[in-house]
């Protein structure tokens, strides 16, 4: 019998539905992988094998009764620990939320459970989703299952959804939720040779997701291939009246609409993404992507996104500004850590609690955000950044007059060794240089594996679509997936 943990979302769901294997068998197999890899990969903050079994048994029982099964029936998944899960500790990988047990379930996770998915555990991440290497987690960094050829050095699984990317790549789960604020689904997907899509801002409800930067945060699936992402996104997405920014649109049947024939479609190649310092391997894979899409029938056109260079600095004003305010609620009064030094007053308690509860990167961003919003600087920083954001959005609109979807690299390099950039915030930020523009414009964007670099590490290609056009993104992704023939997987060392 095949190893069930080699299967993806669609294969598991269809196998369970057909009775080839039971949901319980699937859950057990993944539970075992989760437990076996925990010490080496540190992908989970909390494992919840009993939750996975419980959900699986419910699916098996429903099937036995001949009930209609959900889109994710029998599929156990990993849940990024940014989603509030009722009765299960939710930390955002921070000390300040250590021990926090939500009395509510996030909309996205609730949607997934309703569709028949089960929870294997809460996945590690960069603290409050701030980071690109998973090194800012209070619970220790995740280790990528990938290794450079000829080296045992620990590599970054990307961030902030690094637990998700590592777990999917290492077959600890067939799929996982991610959130993307400035690349946090796409960059880790690229680093670990998996597929991840950030949908249009507003497709997935933000209700119950620990907020980082409200105008950017968007949940999405991370899985092994495009089809699995489409299935899972259908289950996650949907209008939620509890989120003012939720899109009141019916969720398209993206899976049914998958079509890799690109004839009649134009693919835009943004010239400003050919940046100095970009890894030649990355540029080569980009050229491969162009060739594959042309082969799929697409017309390739050059497009211009003139303000690309300013996306990252704009992001590093807007996101910290929003974060500085969003994270003000962590004050030791209603939940989470309280540090009350002897004789401290209320304001001193706040300062002590937050000093003890937040990691360095979180503090850095809160500080920057506080500064750019403070009296006298608001216009020069925050408003200027939001104006630049308007220009970036207009750039995309103009580009989409000439093309249907944009192809670009996901990251400027492949995964790097842990510790390589952790002392240099700016070098770390540059990881997201290609990912951030789509985030600022709220556009759907996905990363698909495109091959390995000369060190044997995965590289991703990014597809950016028009607002609401997840289908166009998924289809172009599928066209690449079919031609890239990416079958590499990390050799098991854990």
């Amino acid at each position, binding site marked *: 019998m095949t190893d069930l943990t080699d299967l993806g979302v669609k294969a598991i769901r269809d196998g369970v539905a057909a009775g080839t294997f039971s949901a319980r068998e699937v859950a057990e197999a993944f539970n075992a992988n989760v437990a076996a890899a925990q010490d080496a990969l540190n992908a989970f903050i909390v494992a919840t094998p009993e939750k996975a079994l419980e959900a699986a048994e419910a699916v098996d029982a429903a099937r036995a009764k001949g009930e209609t099964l959900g889109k994710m029936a029998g599929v156990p998944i990993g849940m990024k620990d940014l989603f509030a899960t009722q009765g299960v500790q939710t930390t955002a990988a921070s000390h300040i939320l250590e021990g926090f047990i939500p009395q509510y379930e996030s909309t996205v996770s609730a949607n997934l459970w309703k569709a028949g998915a089960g929870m294997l555990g809460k996945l590690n991440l960069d603290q409050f989703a701030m980071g690109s290497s998973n090194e800012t987690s209070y619970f220790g960094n995740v280790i990528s299952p990938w290794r450079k050829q000829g080296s045992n050095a620990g590599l970054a699984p990307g961030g902030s959804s690094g637990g998700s990317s590592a777990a999917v790549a290492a077959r600890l789960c067939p799929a996982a939720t991610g959130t993307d604020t400035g690349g946090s689904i796409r960059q880790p997907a690229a680093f670990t040779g998996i597929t991840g899509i950030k949908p249009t801002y507003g497709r997935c409800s933000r*209700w119950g997701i620990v*907020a980082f930067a409200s105008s950017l945060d968007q949940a999405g699936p991370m899985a092994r291939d495009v089809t699995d992402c489409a299935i899972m996104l259908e289950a996650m997405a949907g209008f939620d009246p509890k989120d003012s*920014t939720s899109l009141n649109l019916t969720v398209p049947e993206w899976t049914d609409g998958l079509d890799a024939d690109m004839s009649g479609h134009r693919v835009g190649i943004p010239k400003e993404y050919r940046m100095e310092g970009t890894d030649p391997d990355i540029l080569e894979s980009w050229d491969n992507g162009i060739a594959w899409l042309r082969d799929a029938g697409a017309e390739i056109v050059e497009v211009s996104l003139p303000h690309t260079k300013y996306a990252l600095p704009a992001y590093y004003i807007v996101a910290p500004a929003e974060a*500085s305010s969003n*994270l003000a*609620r962590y004050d030791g*009064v209603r939940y989470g850590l309280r540090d009350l030094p002897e004789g401290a007053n209320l304001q001193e308690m706040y300062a002590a609690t937050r000093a003890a509860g937040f990691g360095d990167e979180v503090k850095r961003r809160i500080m920057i955000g506080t500064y750019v919003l403070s*009296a006298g600087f*608001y216009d020069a920083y925050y408003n200027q950044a939001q104006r630049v954001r308007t220009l970036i959005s207009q750039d995309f609109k103009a580009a989409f007059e000439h093309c249907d979807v944009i192809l670009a690299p996901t990251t400027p390099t492949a995964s790097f060794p842990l510790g390589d950039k952790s002392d240099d915030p700016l070098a770390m930020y540059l990881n997201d240089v290609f990912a951030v523009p789509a985030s600022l414009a709220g556009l759907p964007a996905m990363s698909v594996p495109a091959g390995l670099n000369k060190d044997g590490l995965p590289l991703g290609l990014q597809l950016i679509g028009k607002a609401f056009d997840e289908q166009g993104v998924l289809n172009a992704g599928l066209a690449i997936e079919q031609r890239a023939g990416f079958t590499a997987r990390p050799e098991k060392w854990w």
Partner: protein
Amino acid sequence: MSSYRIQGVTGEWEVVIGLEVHAQVTSNAKLFSGASTEFGAEPNAQVSLVDAAMPGMLPVPNRECIRQAVRTGMAIEAQINKWSRFDRKNYFYADLPQGYQISQLYHPLVGEGSLLIEADEKAGIPADKRIGIERIHVEQDAGKLMHDQHPTMSYVDLNRSGVALMEIVSKPDMRSPAEAGAYVRKLRSILRYVGSCDGNMEQGSMRADVNVSVRKPGDEFGTRTETKNVNSVRFVMAVIEQEARRQVDLIEDGGKVVQETRLYDPDRNETRSMRSKEDAHDYRYFPDPDLLPLDLDDDFLVECRESLPELPDAKKRRYVEELGLSEYNATQLTAEVEGFRRFEDVLSATASALGKGDKDVATQVANWTLSVAPGVLNALGDEAKVENNTAAASAAILKMQDAGEISGGQAKEIYEIVLKTGREPTEIAETEGLKQLSDTGAIESVIDEVLANNADKVEEYRGGKDKLFGFFVGQTMKALQGKGNPAVVNQILKDKLG
């Protein structure tokens, strides 16, 4: 112009006042959550996950709160901004779970408007005056801190956290405590007419931040202080007096007024500096990224306007111009919602009982509702049952009085019985003998007797001593035991005396 002046050693000073009134919007649920707004619940019983700022919680605005703020704006003839948005005001305090208050700084829902305060010679307001209103914005209320329940801890109750407030910001147009008092009263009246706030200051539904500065008349504005959360009209006026006096004394002693937040202590009747909030001045306002801009459509605005009732100023004008009431009565009747409602109920009941127009009975009804009825009600106190005090009963009494069946005194007596028992006024008049005599024949014979018994006085009257007419009336009424219809008595006496 107000002549209110503070006497200093260096001469006279003028006080400049602006008010920021926080009015709780009348709504069932909170501004951004479904928790109830009802007053007086157990601590933290009316708190949602949203109000407690649990991780991942998001705000969704309550339509009714927006609607009531828009209607309020329309009531002060303000500019309504179809496009507005919410901003976050960031600061740390235990009554503020999010670490920010969702408010509106840059694009408020309601722009400039004004309201009229009326001349009140006695209070030192010589003429009507229009007070400018800068804006009205919608924002969240904070929770409550309790300091006296534990030796080392304060307790936090978030029941109020997230309740919708309108902040109504005046221009610095007031120049005396009396003007400020009149402004708050008028604003309260308008809010209650509109139904956007119950105006209950004791329960904190309305509270004012009082901005006060002083200057030599004609000079530039001085530095102002803001005394927070003053919760009665009387205290608003007291704060202004105390604060103006303090500032004048300070300046004349060579000191300088510091722009700061102060607190009023009613027990000592003084304001003091609130140092605890001093470092919170950098609020880092920015648009709330969890919310989209409000974009009100025309249908919404039309409904807001069409659902507005007649407002105090217009009502008063109509009472004077169409009903022929005196300025004074019209002012009295329109000052409060209860007053005009009572008046209008009795007016329409009386007009239809008499088959007359409103105008024909308005003065009579106004006198009844403003002085006669309250007199009886007050005298009765708890003995009066509210449910007996119907407009129909008042109308029936007024109808009998109008027809001359009962006297004014009898009307009061009947009303008293109505209030106590709920019996029918006509039945009371009948069975309690509370009717006047209008039978001409009977009155004539009594008058003949009076004139016969006082032949000497009749002589004197006819000789030109007109004043004696009242004597005959008195004697006749006495003989009729007060039940004679005065008009009939007068007429017959006049005829007989020639």
